[in-house]
């Protein structure tokens, strides 16, 4: 596809349309919430429609009064809501560089929280915030040790959840869920994949938490590549890993990057060998194996004899490491990639030093191409499928089943209110024709007769107090894209309302590039992916051994890639890995697998 140069105005438009609107943000790695104290009077609103409640308070989404405006059609109000007087719900929330607000709004008092309080009478109190999951876990552990856990705990890890169930700290939501959750919008959505979304949240047949759901293909990768660089070296987009190596080498040898001499990066690599941004997963995948996803206990794949094997010790892994070592020697990947994570790598890509980046469409467009094109109007990006390796074409299958569940404190009385809120919000997320895309003055603003996005307002509130608007169905993002494309084809341009112009006016082609990428991933998610089959809860042995084994693995892999260890050090590593508890873990996992099969 072609892109013209990008003005600041266009850039901002794209930023909101591409990044803000759907709010699924590819990085699926974290969930995060919003809420806090607000000051609207909701004492006698039961029986009114959502529009009647919100309009006088100035909290109606969309711009119904604007001549060209857009009207958000909100669902019917849940029974007996808003609750009066409001109830207080404590819940921690995530905040980071992408959490921004307009005006005087803060994480503790913002448009989303005011909207929730007005509609449902639920007042969210935020005892603490976190940036990364590790920080959340530490603070949760402290909260537990202090006996002061929040009412709603979004996205807590599986092992913490298990401990909390064992310690009798979480509420059994089975009955309230059956009685309150909407059949159409919540229950049916969560039945996706033959009930598998409940794999972690159900304990002994009882629902002990609300499941965490990602989008289909959410963290899967495609290869983003600088088209203008390809033109300069006169090459075609690679279809095999060998071609990718040749292209990367050409980029580096011609030093096409914008940095100081000799700093061009052919292929982005990250200190997390498998990650959604610059992870080399698809390179390993070409050899039919995958390293662990961050530091989680993975990847266990069928061994062809009915059992599961650990990819990390497979002989093909040795070949993959030797292959990447060659890339390192040739400087196709950065000499110090192992010190760089998402933020550092994004800076390099946006600084136009990188030729190829394995990431998903959100990462490739919002977190790469936009910044890159802003810094260099001549930069042109495009994407192709991941290249084929000697064994296959392979990348990580990202299951919509997430391990972080949404648990409620035992004894918490207002779970039904949260579930009613979930019913209402799920209906909006799953019904793109309702045209929800944020609030005027927060997510976008009018400039004459056009809509311009605002950098704030990217803080959504999701289904039950999470960041990310779609944690209900793996298909909702695809549905939105399909609906949008359908709208584009069927409604004449002069009849587009403001929201559709915001979403569809695509002078740079970036929005389309992202949409096409998402659809492609969703279509190919089951064919070209390597699937970690082990999704059981970690056992005591695994908790005891895994950190040590992971260190051994990281040390060996990085040692081999950087040339500090010979490739044959891999053989010794396999023996050590097995002896240090790996074999015992593998046996446990195979017992689990046999039982499951």
């Amino acid at each position, binding site marked *: 596809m072609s892109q013209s140069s990008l003005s600041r105005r266009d850039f901002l438009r794209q930023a909101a349309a591409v990044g803000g609107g759907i709010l699924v943000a590819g990085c699926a790695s974290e969930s995060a919430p919003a809420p806090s104290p607000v000051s609207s009077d909701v004492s006698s609103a039961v029986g009114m429609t959502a529009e009647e409640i919100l309009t006088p308070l100035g909290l109606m989404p969309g711009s119904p009064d604007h001549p060209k405006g857009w009207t958000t059609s909100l669902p019917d109000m849940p029974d007996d809501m808003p609750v009066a007087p409001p109830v207080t719900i404590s819940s921690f929330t995530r905040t980071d560089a992408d959490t921004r607000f307009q005006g005087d709004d803060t994480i503790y008092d913002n448009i989303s929280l005011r909207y929730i309080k007005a509609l449902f009478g639920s007042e969210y109190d935020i005892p603490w915030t976190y940036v990364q999951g590790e920080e959340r876990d530490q603070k949760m552990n402290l909260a537990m*040790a202090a006996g002061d856990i929040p009412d709603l705990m979004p996205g807590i890890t599986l*092992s913490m959840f298990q401990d909390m169930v*064992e*310690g009798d700290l979480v509420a059994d939501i089975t009955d309230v869920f059956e009685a309150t959750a909407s059949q159409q919008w919540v229950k049916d959505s969560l039945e996706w994949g033959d009930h598998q979304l409940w794999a972690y949240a159900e304990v002994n047949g009882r629902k002990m938490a609300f499941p965490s759901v990602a989008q289909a293909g959410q963290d899967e990768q495609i290869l983003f590549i600088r088209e203008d660089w390809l033109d300069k070296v006169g090459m075609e987009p690679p279809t095999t890993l060998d071609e990718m190596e040749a292209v990367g080498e050409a980029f580096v040898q011609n030093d096409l990057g914008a940095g100081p001499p000799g700093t061009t990066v052919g292929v982005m690599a990250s200190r997390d060998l498998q990650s959604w941004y610059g992870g080399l997963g698809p390179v390993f995948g070409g050899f039919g194996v995958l390293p662990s996803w961050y530091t989680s206990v993975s990847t266990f794949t069928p061994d062809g004899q009915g059992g599961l094997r650990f990819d990390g010790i497979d002989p093909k892994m040795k070949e993959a490491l030797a292959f990447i070592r060659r890339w390192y020697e040739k400087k196709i990947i950065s000499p110090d990639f192992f*010190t760089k994570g998402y933020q550092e790598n994004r800076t390099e890509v946006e600084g136009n030093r990188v030729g190829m980046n394995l990431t998903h469409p959100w990462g490739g467009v919002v977190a790469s191409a936009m910044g890159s094109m802003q810094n260099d109007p001549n930069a042109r990006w495009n994407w192709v499928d991941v290249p084929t390796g000697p064994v296959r074409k392979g990348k990580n299958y990202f299951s919509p089943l997430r391990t972080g569940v949404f648990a409620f404190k035992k004894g918490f009385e207002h779970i039904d209110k949260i579930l009613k809120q979930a019913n209402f919000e799920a209906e909006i997320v799953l019904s793109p024709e309702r045209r929800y895309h944020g609030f005027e003055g927060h997510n976008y603003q009018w400039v004459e007769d056009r809509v311009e996005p605002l950098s704030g307002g990217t803080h959504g509130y999701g289904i039950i107090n999470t960041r990310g608007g779609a944690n209900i169905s793996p298909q909702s993002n695809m549905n939105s894209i399909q609906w949008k494309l359908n709208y584009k084809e069927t409604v004449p341009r002069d009849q587009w309302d403001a929201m559709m112009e915001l979403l569809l006016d695509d002078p740079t082609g970036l929005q389309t590039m992202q949409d096409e990428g998402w659809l492609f991933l969703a279509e190919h998610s089951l064919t070209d992916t390597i699937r970690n089959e082990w999704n059981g809860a970690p056992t005591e042995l695994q908790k*005891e051994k895994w950190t040590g084994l992971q260190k051994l693995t990281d040390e060996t892999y990085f040692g081999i890639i*950087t040339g*500090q260890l010979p490739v044959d050090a891999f053989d010794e590593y396999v023996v050590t890995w097995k002896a240090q508890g790996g074999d015992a873990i593998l046996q446990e996992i195979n017992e689990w697998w046999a039982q499951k099969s």
Partner: protein
Amino acid sequence: MMEAISPARVVGKVRAAKLLRNLPQLWPLYVMVIPALIHLALLSYYPMYGITIAFQEYKPALGFAKSPWVGLKQFRLMLENPTFWQIFRNTIVIATSKILTLQFCAVILALMLNEVRRQFFKRTVQSMVYLPYFLSWIVLGGIMLEMLGSSGVVNQLLLRLGVTEAIIFLGNNRTFVPTLIASHLWQQVGWATILYLAALTSIDLQLLEAAAIDGAGRFQRIRYIILPGILPTLMLVLCLDFGLLFNAAGFDQVLNLYNPAVYATSDILDTWIYREGLLGARFSLATAVGLVRSVLGLILIVISLRLIARFTDYQVY
């Protein structure tokens, strides 16, 4: 026949008698100590009951009361960990290297500053070398990664000076520890000179003048008057550092600079405790390692106080 009385008992009795005699005048001072004692009791002694989890399989969700007791299992796991001794050795090597290089350079720098006669120049230099001390390793870590990276300013400079390959300072086991020590030196050396500059002011000027009149040159004055003058301070500082050896490896710095490519030389007890304990949620193991570290630290402090008493006039007890 007189009973033999140990000197320590005599000293103890004299002190007790002194205390009682002076109490009517000194009680306000003792009252003023009380808040500090409360602070110590609440924040240092009260939390010590937490070490019980070193003997449990602690889970925050179960709390202290319900977590199962496992005896010495955590200590066994610690010793069975195949990399424990490597980590222990890294801790000692990094800590000792840092202490020795820092004090050596601080003395040299203090001597050099002491010789500077132009106050403006001296103060400017002092301010400049103090500055990094006030930045945390979160900030400094980012600066170092940026500066020492393959495309960073240091490598760009080296390339222009004719070095053919970028040096991956933080990604190679041969260069990591020297880089760690050098950057620690850069951050700390200015601040560390303060004690020595203070010690230098206590040297009798008449001695120096007399030496000068007797024909002693600048280096001779340093060697025979100034160095012996600051030796007690140097010994005191070294002994104190030795007592805190397990803190000296510098968790903040290592955590912000290390990476899996250099685990073999960079992983220290504190980073291990952090990974296993906080990231791996193995609080009991982390506490057990912390307890061992504290007991060893206590022994070192007692030894260092003895050494201080021996080498200097300073006595804590």
